[in-house]
């Protein structure tokens, strides 16, 4: 069992790991910048960039949702210290994804954008997901956790489950015909959400006891 505990690093090592992870999470963006510069993004680079940023927002969302199950299965509580950064990367890529739509697709034609939001279900649900993501990003600081109180903060941040469902539906609804990729995301999301329902001790206990402590990192 010794090796297992060796995977519970000290504070300094977690810090180093976080710096490395921060850099790794930027790779999808750097790849796009590099590709745009060298013209390797194909015939329709703007479409490629928009889709890639959307995919990565969703990928980081699922990765963030992996933290709790992984922690419970392995007992590595230090994983919790990565969650805020991963969550903020969801917001980062989602913001870039939204910006490409507002700028490169609609060129800030607000009338068209408002029309889209009301008329196109996949835009409506995508925008809703982003609107819900915004308060989570704004309340991600230690100060905001303190101000809200752990319990209220946790309840608010459960919105991430709704956001994840909206994001997958957004993807499903925009696909022209072949839904195999959104279907794979749906299955992964079901597994991650199902874990939370089925894992013993998950769910409402923290709320009732009021003993919840948000991640201190």
């Amino acid at each position, binding site marked *: 069992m010794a090796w297992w505990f060796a995977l519970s690093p000290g504070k300094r090592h977690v810090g180093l790991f976080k710096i490395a992870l921060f850099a790794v999470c930027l790779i999808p963006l750097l790849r796009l910048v590099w590709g745009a510069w060298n013209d390797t993004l194909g015939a*329709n680079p*703007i479409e490629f960039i928009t889709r890639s940023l959307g995919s990565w927002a969703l990928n980081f969302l699922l990765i963030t949702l992996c933290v709790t199950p992984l922690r419970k299965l392995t007992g590595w509580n230090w994983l919790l210290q990565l969650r805020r950064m991963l969550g903020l990367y969801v917001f980062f890529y989602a913001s870039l994804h939204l910006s490409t739509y507002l700028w490169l697709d609609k*060129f800030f034609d607000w009338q068209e954008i408002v029309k889209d939001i009301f008329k*196109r279900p996949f835009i409506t649900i995508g925008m809703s997901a982003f609107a819900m993501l915004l308060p989570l990003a704004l309340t991600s600081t230690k100060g905001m956790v303190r101000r809200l109180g752990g319990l209220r903060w946790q309840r608010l941040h459960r919105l991430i489950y709704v956001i994840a469902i909206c994001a997958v539906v957004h993807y499903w609804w925009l696909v022209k*015909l072949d839904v195999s990729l959104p279907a794979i995301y749906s299955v992964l999301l079901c597994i991650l959400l199902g874990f939370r329902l089925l894992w013993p001790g998950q769910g409402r206990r923290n709320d009732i006891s009021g003993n919840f402590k948000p991640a201190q990192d």
Partner: protein
Amino acid sequence: MLSIPARRTTDVTPSEITPREVFERRRDFLGTAAGFALGTALAPLSAALASEKPLASIKSPLSTPEKPTPLKDVTSYNNFYEFGTDKADPALHAHTLKTRPWTVSIEGLVKQPKTFAIDDIFRLGALEERIYRLRCVEGWSMVIPWLGLPLATLLKSVEPLGSAKYVEFISAADPKTMPGVNRSVIDWPYLEGLRLDEAMHPLTLLALGLYGEVLPKQNGAPLRLVVPWKYGFKSGKSIVKIRLVEKQPQTAWMKANPREYGFYSNVNPEVDHPRWSQASERRIGEFLKRKTLPFNGYADQVAPLYAGMDLKINF
């Protein structure tokens, strides 16, 4: 054996310049060919060589003066679900398609039903270069220098009967050479259809090549339809059968989603796809979007075909 057909035009258009990679491939090929003793190997080699030589064509007054989309983009960004649903898939996977031998049978309400060998279609008339806009239903567009014959030339040769009102186009669906056919994203084979007057319209082209060469496989070799005033999916690729019928035929996209795809599918900035606007488009290679034109800019020629029709209902 390798006779160069006489040029009918004097000036060289960009499309007549052989792309470098094709040129180099041909040199490699000639090198290999030289390694073979002249003999039994020669016949198939000459056939292969023939398929790579630039095609002679006459210019058409129906061409747009707009700048053609680069060949690289035309051949690497394709919707051809028989080879996969990603637009990069056809360029990666279409090499397995066998375009010789190939036959196209024309049947149904015609006086002279006939099965054409592909090489006979090449001999039906002088190939024309037609530089057309192509507008995809997804909201992007290209300008492509096609080579081909008016579809009317082929249809007239089989003498449609008076009872024929529609034309159905059936694409190849061979699971061995078209890997995408093994997935049931579409009810194979790919079906498309036109009204007979649309099919006989002088703009409607039976394309056999592009950029001065035979059609690349990912673009629908060895022959495809090009109906420039309709969304791209109306132009069936790798066609094996053409049937003249009395009733409006079903099409693959109507079967897949009748709410989103109608029989006519004329380019129309005023009729949105249920999920996205069709008011503008991104021309491949351009940063800003363009306004989409009614009938993709071919309204002068084709609007009379739809006189009196409500195009919001007949979308």
